[in-house]
């Protein structure tokens, strides 16, 4: 595929976009697993939320 005389700009643009999107996805995924880990740990220790306690 011939990207013409300014190929490096096109490549750079796509690279930056890919990087930012990847960073965003990575942050979301890592945050999710971190929160899940903490939540599972807390639930394991028997801590419950007020709305979960019915007794």
């Amino acid at each position: 595929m011939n990207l013409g005389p300014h190929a490096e700009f096109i490549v750079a643009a796509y690279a930056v976009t890919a990087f930012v999107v990847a960073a965003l996805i990575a942050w979301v995924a890592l945050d999710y697993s971190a929160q899940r880990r903490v939540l599972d740990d807390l639930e394991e220790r028997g801590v419950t939320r007020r709305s979960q306690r019915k007794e």
Partner: protein
Amino acid sequence: MPVTDLANPTRFLTLVNRVLPWLVAATCVLFAIGLIRAMSAPDDYQQGATVKIMYLHVPAAWLGMFGWGLMSIAALGTLVWRHPLADVAGKAAAPIGAAFTFICLVTGSLWGRPTWGTYWVWDARLTSMLVLLLLYLGVLALYWTAEEPGRGARAAAILSLVGAVNLPIIKFSVDWWNTLHQPASVFRMGGSTIAPALLTPLLIMALAFTLLFVTLHLAIMRNEILRRRVRSMRLVQAQELHA
């Protein structure tokens, strides 16, 4: 499913967990199609292959503005209708909108260098986007540095609305200022009439990016709800230890 059902965080989480895999799949498929179409699209008769940057720059610009619009609606939900998940929606939209605005600025700059000869130009569009990014950073500062999620959320909601009112004014001022200082030429990015061969890939990429936005938005909302649960559980834990 009525909006009121979505007000319950637990039910919302169940919905998100079910829907998210499909959204991810759809996003990937659309990006695949879009990128193939974008790469195989013909070159612009003036700009050559650099028009391919348009497929990134234009959707990013739309989504940057869409993000702020979403935050404004969420702000109304927080302040006026007191919807329980409205502030979560607003807080989740901010980083995504900011990221897309940033992408818009960088790709615009990289598009400008070969076509206009300079990395930055104070034209109306880029400058307005820059101010939008600054506003995003302000809102992010409010949302993510508050000790208590609720308080930062309300302040950020007000700023979202103030910004929404001010954004057309800023756009108008920058436009006006630009014509004042650059009477010579008006740079048209891609032109107002885009050839169909270029338009279709653009629309597919725009759709792909929008799906990406929605997917990330729901995922971040889920994270935020979990984060608040952790916080309230830790508070309960601390109370029980104390008692």
